[in-house]
């Protein structure tokens, strides 16, 4: 288990990405699985800064990673406002160009690309987002090949 805290700023995103790539490497995820984790975490952290904190420099993002034989768990914690993801509807990803929303893809990517996604809010403790990515056969194989 590794925990690291980052300032809630957009220029932390590149460092968070690097940190996550280190973890996905160690977990032996294949290139594409690693990319989906990096992207899901990036989307979640952007949302924390933009929506939970409402601006940059309002608080930290804490990132805890656990690797086991079955997969990789990443927990993101912030002290911003609570959020009920159930209220967010799926974006239109099939309509004509003019009907396409330019917002609302972040959560969609997180849900599509992670195997489990859980949002929790405890007053006093803030928000906790748990992302879980299973090892696929392919990724296990690519680990063995190393």
């Amino acid at each position, binding site marked *: 288990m590794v925990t690291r805290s980052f300032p809630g700023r957009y220029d932390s995103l590149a460092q968070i990405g690097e940190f996550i790539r280190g973890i996905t490497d160690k977990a032996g995820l294949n290139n594409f699985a690693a*990319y989906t984790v990096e992207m899901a975490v990036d989307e979640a952290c952007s949302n924390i800064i933009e929506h939970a904190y409402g601006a940059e420099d309002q608080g930290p993002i804490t990132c805890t990673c656990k690797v086991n034989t079955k997969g990789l768990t990443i927990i993101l914690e912030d002290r911003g406002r609570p959020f009920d993801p159930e209220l967010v509807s799926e974006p239109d990803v099939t309509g004509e160009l003019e009907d396409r929303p330019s917002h609302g893809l972040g959560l969609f990517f997180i849900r599509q690309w992670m195997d489990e996604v859980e949002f929790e809010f405890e007053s006093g403790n803030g928000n906790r987002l748990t992302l879980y990515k299973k090892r696929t056969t392919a990724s296990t194989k690519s680990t063995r090949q190393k």
Partner: protein
Amino acid sequence: MEITHTQYKHCDLVKVKGRIDSYTAPQLAETFNKITDDGRFKIALEMSELDFMSSAGLRALINTQKVCKRYNRGELVLVAIPGNIHAALDLAGFIPLFKIFDDVLSAVGNF
């Protein structure tokens, strides 16, 4: 992120390298806006050396495509999309919205 912009006779080529996330995407959007504010709506985005693109980057793409395609005056085309980014564009349903080229020459030559 590193952006290079070259203006050709019939189109503009934007090459983006590195990482597009919420921190850097505004620069890409600004590059596109400068081009379209200039009355130029035929743009090719070269992505071969792009490592990462979040939904903030997708936002810049879709907004620019809307501006470019309006009144049939042009379009944004995508060039040399890396595999992982292609998968993201695909999941977001962007593939039918953009012409895609393997190399810049065919992209620039198509305008």
